[in-house]
């Protein structure tokens, strides 16, 4: 039998590598500030992806970068991580991470 492919659609899926095993806690993959999925975007952006990236703290907490920066820029934040109130230090982007 001979098959002629006339057209095809490529389908791809992506997700941020947060370093956490997302299968363990599928409901927990939201930014703690806006409560939108990491794979979504912060409330001021329209398109998820590289234009609305995540930011990692040395304390291991993850947020939409825009959400975190909005918080850190207020005086009431005292430059602290919203989760543990430790001074926010942005971690180097983990390449490869622990995701297999």
């Amino acid at each position, binding site marked *: 039998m001979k098959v002629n492919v006339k057209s095809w659609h490529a389908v791809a899926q992506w997700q941020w590598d947060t370093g956490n095993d997302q299968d363990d806690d599928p409901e927990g993959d939201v930014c703690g500030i806006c409560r939108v999925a990491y794979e979504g975007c912060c409330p*001021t952006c329209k398109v998820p992806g590289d234009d609305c990236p995540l930011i990692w703290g040395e304390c291991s907490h993850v947020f939409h970068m825009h959400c975190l920066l*909005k918080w850190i820029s207020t005086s009431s934040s005292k430059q602290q991580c919203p989760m543990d*109130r430790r001074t926010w230090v942005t971690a180097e982007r983990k390449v490869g991470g622990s995701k297999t």
Partner: protein
Amino acid sequence: MASISARRLAKELHEIQTEGCPVGINLLQADDFAAWQFTIEVMGESLYQGEVFTLLFRFDKHYPISSPAVQFVVTDGKTSPVHPHVYSNGHICASILGNEWSPVLSVIAVCLTLQSMLASCKKKERPPDNDRYVRHAPDNPKKTQFHYDGNSP
């Protein structure tokens, strides 16, 4: 486009409506994303047995980056709990409503904190500066610079 606060509050409201409130807390009114009301009572043994209070949350468009304005309702025959951190006009001196607010907190988290603040009360009394404060208090408790120092208000 809906404001940042409206999107976040819509999510919180959906969660409340699908999962319900914690025991002792009930949603009274949430017609918009500007002001919500809850009833709050302390379950089990406490100094506030049988008392039901009403909490008013007011949100600005920067919530949750900016904290909600939270107070007890003292109109329409409602009263504020007699507590060392609660003024008779309903204003509350609680650090998480002020300098310890965090945008990962939520309306329900605030309700639970206030519920446990009442539950752990040892003596029903007003803050020592109640009269002076209430006389000059702003309408919005967020405009008050409370001094948080542990047990005394």
